[in-house]
């Protein structure tokens, strides 16, 4: 009976010690202000996660990516009467410099979207909505990048027709599972 009592007390403490050592750490990567004036004038946002101190601290202990969000404030620069804006984010796993929508759709992978913005409107991307807009393959793809060199390129574009939009305070948020 004494052994059982000892085990019952020691076991949870042992488990606590094991699992206290891992946790979720959020890193945010500033993409700045992105101006896209049309499908032939895209912006290549080159990301280098090694410039982020939290990523550098935890990348060797990285075990997974639990959550993602692409945040910012989107303005549809086309006036009322124009088409509704549908913003998407695409990714290439290396540093690239595509400038047209055709190049991106042919060579990149869709990461996120579409986020719908009415003509002339400005919306702040909602965290929960943003998290739901990631494609099913976004999480493993970004995990692969984070376990690799942490360098990739993001493109933001519209889904069809004419578009002209600005995203201010653009931030890519990645929540890592890592030893803390």
């Amino acid at each position, binding site marked *: *009976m004494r052994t*059982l*009592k000892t085990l*019952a*007390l020691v*076991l*949870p403490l042992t*488990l*606590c010690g094991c*699992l*206290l050592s*891992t*946790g*979720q*750490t*959020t890193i*945010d990567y*500033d993409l700045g202000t992105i101006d896209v004036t049309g499908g032939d004038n895209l912006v290549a946002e080159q990301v280098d996660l090694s410039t982020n101190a939290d990523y550098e601290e935890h990348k060797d202990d990285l*075990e*997974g990516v*639990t*959550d993602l*969000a692409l*945040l*910012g*404030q989107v303005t549809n620069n086309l006036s009322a009467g124009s088409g509704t804006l549908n913003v998407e984010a695409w990714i290439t796993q290396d540093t690239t410099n595509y400038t047209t929508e055709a190049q991106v759709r042919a060579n990149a992978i869709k990461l996120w979207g579409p986020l719908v913005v009415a003509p002339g409107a400005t919306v*702040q991307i*909602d*965290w*929960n*909505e*943003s*998290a*739901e807009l990631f494609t099913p393959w976004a*999480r493993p793809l970004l995990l692969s990048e984070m376990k690799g060199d942490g360098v990739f390129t993001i493109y933001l574009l519209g889904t069809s027709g004419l578009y002209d939009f600005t995203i201010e*305070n*653009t*931030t890519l*948020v990645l*929540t890592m*599972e*890592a030893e*803390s």
Partner: protein
Amino acid sequence: MRKAIILAALALLAVPGTASSADTAWGIAAFGGPSFPIGQDDNNGSGVTYGVRFPAHFGFFLSVEPHFDWTNGGETEETFNDLPYTRDGIDVKQAGMNFILGNPTGSGFRIYPYVGIGHYSLKGEGREDLQKIGYNGGLGIGFGSKLKLDVRGDYTMIDIGLSSRKAISATAGLGLTINPND
């Protein structure tokens, strides 16, 4: 796993109807209190946990306690790039079993450590739904006769495969010993 725990809980509730019912004490308790996530940048808002327990004591040092819990994760407020964001917390449902050193159904003042295992269902807006096994442990303090008040401090860790979700909670419970044995 969830079905197995529910079946085990029902089996324990049926025990008082068996031949050993003279030695078996059992009861029911409702509880609730605050819950605080630990080590989670993406889920650090305090929430509320509540549920129902069915303690059963068989006449020796160990008691078992099937329980069903719900935790509503609190919102997280964060600022990124000068813009404020609100994120919903993770809601958790649990069906589990506690193993208690002592007799929470007994009369008087009692202190009892416990450990437990359970099936956890985690759900959050924009997050992947998870069904996982988790572990908990803590210390309870109870007093009363047939009608009891108990206070517990509990540590929970849910194994989510690569790491874990952890939380501490403090709950107060009101219980009734339906079939006492002391």
